[in-house]
Every structure is written in structure tokens, then in C-alpha cells.
């Protein structure tokens, strides 16, 4: 059953491979610089590597946007995205899988009355604007640079040809790696909470984590899309949007690859932060959007007279339609799934507002006058809690999101024996492990209570002042807390 549900994610992965991966190497094939078979093999290999090695960077953003917590829900969300992608492709629009999946998750949030993390959403919306702009600017510069090099370097035409081919191989590999790293979140991101996989211990110190297995499955489906179907989409991308020459195609592919890398590389992100340069957020971006931006960049570098404004208008319209249609399809599918097929599309969550929760929210500088009215009341699902918040006049999505996080009831009991067994000394410091052991047999109702308690007794568990330099330390600590929550949660 679980595999049937996961199949929708694999379908989405397949369509992503068939469509988006074609953006990475399609122009190389259509300009006859690479053979389809070689391009498909290179892209598949690097795509899987990218997903496995660097896939975690952007998954967080998608995960936070909507914590789809039941596998039937994940199935519906993925299927809604895949259907809207399919429908828009049939209309001849270069579609963005990112937008489809974000729309579908928002549909799930709406259906389940779960609040949306506005900050994550803003980050994603930001990427939708800046991704084509960055890719366009890069391709503009790269095209002029390549042309200048060709004009003045006195390299033989045949050698340029050979170099361009090497360039395509490099760009395809680099692009595919970044595509895997950046897009795996779209394919399996919604399955993280409800993943059917468990960690596999291969050797004493080597295990394949559930997340890695999930990523590998997603990446395989993307590779299957490349090998089985991308041949058909290459022709559309290579010639329909804009007739590219090998050099302009190379410039555009490089621009797309670099843009993907910029939006998915944790290493680059850290490096920019250490240089005190504002870093670009790590969000899953659309290769299609990047490619369209890159092609427009090339057209502008060629003087702009080749630009077809009608097509650009059509594409922009498609970008507006995608998230909306995907959200609507998602709502419809979730409704059908829940009411016709009697499947659980989300786990009900209980909420409780009490003195402690109110104090905690107050300490986070939240005005709690309105929420005081709900003091002492417990709610057994998302919808009723949201209605109550609505009733007392709390309407800001960001505030609702924070209250949901604080009031959510989960039961945890810390256990020193379990801590000794489960907490890996390579991952956790001695201080951290000791602090967990110290709280032996203590129970908690809310996640934040564990955070408060642990940070009180151990410096190692304390978050640093939130600023760009401490971003990764805090992120790492957040991940450690996530491990604690998953280990000590009472099921």
C-alpha cells in the first residue's frame, strides 16, 4: 500500500526527469553536440549523485512549508502536482514543477486548516522572481564572454567544436548534479514525514539512512524519466522556445546549471556567509524558469530583436496558472481521497492552550491578549483550533503558524538508556548526551518544552543569536533536536 502511495511521488519524479532534465541537456542534443544516449547516461548518473549527496539542502524549505503528515495526503499532493504539470505541458506551456508542488502543498494546508509558514513561502516566491533573473543575467554575460573568446582567442573552429562538446558534458553533469540536489525535495519532500523506509545498518559505522533511501528512490524515478521520455521533450525545448546555436546553447545550459547550484549548494551558502555576503536562500527552484530566463538573456545579448513577447506573455501566464491550478486539483484529490476512498489524508493533531504555552509565546514577543481567551481549552484537530483562533480575532497567518507550533500536543519521555543506545557520539557531543540522560524519565507535552529544558541545563543545547554567521550552527542544532523528538516521541 505504501508503495502505491509513493508511486505518485515517483510519477512526479519521472515527469521531472522527462521535462526538467531535458532542460539541462536538451539543447546539447538538439544542436547535435551530444548524442542522446551519452547525454542521458551522464545526466542520470549525476542526478542520482546530486540527490544523494546534496539533496538535503532544500528539502527543509519544502518540509517546513507544509508538514504533510499522512501518506495518502502525500500521495494526493504529488499526484495533484503531477496532473497539473501534465495538463499544462499538453497546453504547450513550459511548466514549472516547483510551482506545481508548492501549489499542491498549499492546497493540503488549506484542506487540513494547517497554517502556512509565510517565511518559507516568501523565500520560494522570491526564488520564482530571482531565479529567471539570475539565469538570464548569467547567460547574457556568458554568451558575450564565449563570443569574445571565440572571436579573439584564435582557437581553431574544430577545437572550439571539441571544447563546446566537453563544455556540454561538464554542464550536463554539473546541471544534473544540481538538478538532483535541488529538485529531489520536490519529488520526495512531502514523503519525508511519512516515509516507508527505515535505516539500514550496513556495517558498524555505516548505515544507509531512511532519508537516503527515499532520495535514491526519487532520483531513480527521475533518471527513468530521462531515459524513457526526455527524448520527446528535447525537441520542444531545443527549438520551440528559441533557436539556439551550440555556443548560445552552452551559455544557457551553464547559466542554468550555475543558477541551480547557487540555489542548492550549502557549501556556497556557508562560504558567502563567512564572507559576510548576503547569501541566496536554499530553495528548490524551477529549471524551466531558469532555462526560460537564460534563453531570454541570450536573446537580449543578441540585440533583443529575436524576443517573442507573445510567447513570453504566454509563459508568464502559465507561471501564474500553475500554482493555482495545482492547489485546486490538490484540494479536489484530497477531498476524493478522504471521502470516497476513506483514506486518512492527514493525521489529526491535538492542541492545548495553557499558561505555559501562553508564557512561551509571550517570551517570543507575541501579543497574547487574544489567545488568553482560549486558556485551558484543548482542541482535537487542526480545523477546530484554527476556527477558535479565528473566533478570537487572530488572522495573521504567521501568528497562527507560531501558535500552532507552540500549542501542538505530542508526548515525549526522555530515557537515559535509550539515549545511550540511540544517540551517536559522532553526531552528538558528550555534553548533549549527558544533558539528555540527566532528564531521565521526564515527560513533555510540547516540543518547545524539551528545547527550553535542555538549553537550560546544557550550553551545548543552546541556540546562538540568530544571525547569518550562526545560521548553520543553529540549523545543525535544529536537526539534532529533530532527532531527539523522533527518538523520544511516544507513539
Amino acid at each position, binding site marked *: 500500500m505504501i508503495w502505491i502511495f509513493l508511486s505518485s511521488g515517483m510519477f512526479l519524479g519521472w515527469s521531472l526527469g522527462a521535462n526538467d532534465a531535458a532542460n539541462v541537456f536538451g539543447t546539447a542534443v538538439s544542436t547535435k553536440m551530444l548524442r542522446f544516449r551519452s547525454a542521458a547516461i551522464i545526466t542520470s548518473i549525476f542526478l542520482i549523485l546530486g540527490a544523494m549527496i546534496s539533496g538535503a539542502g532544500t528539502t527543509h524549505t519544502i518540509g517546513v512549508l507544509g508538514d504533510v503528515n499522512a501518506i495518502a495526503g502525500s500521495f494526493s499532493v504529488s499526484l495533484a502536482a503531477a496532473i497539473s504539470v501534465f495538463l499544462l505541458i499538453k497546453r504547450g506551456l513550459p511548466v514549472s514543477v516547483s510551482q506545481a508542488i508548492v501549489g499542491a502543498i498549499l492546497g493540503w494546508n488549506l484542506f487540513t486548516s494547517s497554517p502556512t509558514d509565510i517565511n518559507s513561502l516568501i523565500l520560494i516566491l522570491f526564488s520564482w522572481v530571482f531565479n529567471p533573473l539570475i539565469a538570464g543575467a548569467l547567460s547574457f554575460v556568458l554568451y558575450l564572454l564565449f563570443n569574445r573568446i571565440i572571436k*579573439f582567442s584564435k582557437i581553431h*573552429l574544430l577545437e572550439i567544436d571539441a571544447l563546446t562538446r566537453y563544455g556540454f558534458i561538464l554542464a550536463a553533469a554539473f546541471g544534473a548534479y544540481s538538478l538532483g540536489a535541488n529538485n529531489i525535495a520536490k519529488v520526495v519532500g512531502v514523503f519525508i514525514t511519512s516515509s516507508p523506509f527505515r535505516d539500514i545498518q550496513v556495517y558498524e559505522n555505516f548505515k544507509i539512512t531512511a532519508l537516503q533511501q527515499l532520495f535514491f528512490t526519487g532520483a531513480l524515478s527521475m533518471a527513468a524519466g530521462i531515459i524513457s521520455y526526455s527524448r520527446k521533450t528535447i525537441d520542444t525545448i531545443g527549438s520551440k522556445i528559441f533557436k539556439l546555436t551550440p555556443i548560445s546553447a552552452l551559455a544557457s545550459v551553464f547559466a542554468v546549471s550555475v543558477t541551480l547550484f547557487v540555489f542548492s549548494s550549502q557549501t556556497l551558502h556557508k562560504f558567502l556567509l563567512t564572507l559576510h555576503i548576503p547569501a541566496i536562500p536554499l530553495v528548490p527552484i524551477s529549471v524551466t524558469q531558469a532555462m526560460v530566463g537564460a534563453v531570454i538573456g541570450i536573446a537580449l545579448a543578441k540585440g533583443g530583436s529575436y524576443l517573442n513577447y507573445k510567447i513570453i506573455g504566454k509563459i508568464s501566464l502559465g507561471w501564474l496558472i500553475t500554482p493555482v491550478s495545482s492547489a485546486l486539483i490538490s484540494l479536489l484529490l484530497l477531498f476524493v481521497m478522504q471521502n470516497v476512498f476513506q483514506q486518512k489524508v492527514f493525521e489529526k493533531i491535538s492542541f492545548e492552550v495553557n499558561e505555559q504555552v501562553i508564557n512561551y509565546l509571550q517570551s517570543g514577543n507575541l501579543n497574547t491578549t487574544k489567545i488568553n481567551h482560549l486558556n485551558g481549552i484543548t482542541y482535537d484537530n487542526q480545523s477546530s483550533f484554527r476556527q477558535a483562533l479565528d473566533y478570537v480575532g487572530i488572522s495573521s497567518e504567521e501568528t497562527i503558524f507560531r501558535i500552532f507550533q507552540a500549542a501542538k500536543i505530542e508526548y515525549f519521555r526522555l530515557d537515559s538508556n535509550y539515549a545511550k543506545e540511540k544517540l551517536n557520539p559522532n553526531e552528538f557531543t558528550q555534553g548533549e548526551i549527558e544533558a539528555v540522560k540527566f532528564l531521565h524519565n521526564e515527560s513533555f507535552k510540547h516540543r518547545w518544552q524539551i528545547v527550553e529544558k535542555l538549553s537550560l541545563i546544557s550550553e551545548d543545547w543552546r541556540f546562538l543569536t540568530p544571525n547569518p554567521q550562526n545560521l548553520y550552527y543553529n540549523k545543525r542544532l535544529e536537526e539534532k533536536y529533530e532527532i531527539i523528538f523522533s527518538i523520544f516521541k511516544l507513539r
Partner: protein
Amino acid sequence: MFASKKTKKLETQIDEFLDKILSGSLQFKQGVKYYIENLNDMFEKTLTEISTTEESADNLRRTIETKLYLHTLIPEYRGDVLGLLESVDKVLNKSKETIFQYSVEKPNILPEFASLFLELTNTSVTSVEYMVYAVRAYFSDYQKVRDNINKSVFYEKEADVLADKLKRNIFANTNLGLAEKIHLRYFTYHIEQIADSAEDVCDRLSIAVIKRFG
């Protein structure tokens, strides 16, 4: 620097092909000179040489064309390159045909026309030489293509002026009958044609350069 052995070999073959065109036109120049100076043995030897050169140039061109298609090299410019090589080859064919016509028809070049004939031949061949330099530069040196095209076209115009002068002199001559005059004009025309076909190559090249370098 970056190319594989196969590509490198092809580069060399293109260069060799252009070398053949160059030596073929120099052999043509020598041939006309030997003919005018009545050095028959030398002239006949040149005939054999130009034939061999033309044949090996043809073979090289075919090999290059096959390789370009077989390995799908320079897909964007393949048509241009093949067209260029074929039109360059035609220039050598024309030189060979003309020199063979000397051997067959034995035109009676009077001493008073000798220097103009030689000058016309030199100018046409110079136009071909610059054309070859321009084609060679097309593969690697943008600036040199333009320079050499300009020089080739300049010498083609010179050849036109000289041919015109020669034809006028021929027809103004009172010692020659009309048949001989027409015969000499025919040879003048053919030498002039060699420069004209070099100009055709340059026209084709100008378009190819715009396509390649923008």
C-alpha cells in the same frame, strides 16, 4: 590544444587541402610563364604536377567532407565549411582546365602581349592566394579573414582592369586576324575568371564569417 587526435588530423587535412590549392595556383602561374617563354618541357612537367595536385586536393576534400558528416562535427557550420571547400576546389579546377587549354589549343601569344599576360596571371594568382589565406583564417582568426578578403577582392579588381587593357590591346593590334584575336581574348577571359571565382569564394566567406563571429 583541446582536440582529440581525430580532430587534430582533420585540422591538418583542411590545412593540407588549402596548401594544395595554393601550390596549384603557383603551378598555374609557372605554367603560363613557361608557355610564354616557350619552355615546352618545363610547361609539360607543370601540367602533370597541377593534375596531381588537383587530384589529391579532390581526394582530400572528399575525406574531409566524409569525416565532418561521419563524426557530426561543427554541426552549425558544417554546411558553410563544405560549401567553402567545394568552391575553393573549383578555383583549382579552373586553373587546371585553363593550363590544359594552353597545351591543347596552343594560343599564339605575341611578344608585345607577353608582359600583360604575365601580369594578369600574377594578379589573378595573388587574388587566389589571399583567398586561400582568408579561408584558412576563417577557421581560427577573425581579424585576418577580413584583411585577406579585402586584399583578394582588391587583386580581383586589378585583374579585371588588366584583362580589359589586354583585350583592348589585342583587338587594336593590326597584325592579328579576327580568329586569333578572339582566341587570345578567350584565354584572357579564362585567366580573369580564376580571379572571379576567387572573388565568389570571398563573397561566400563574408557571409560565413558574419554567421560565425556575428
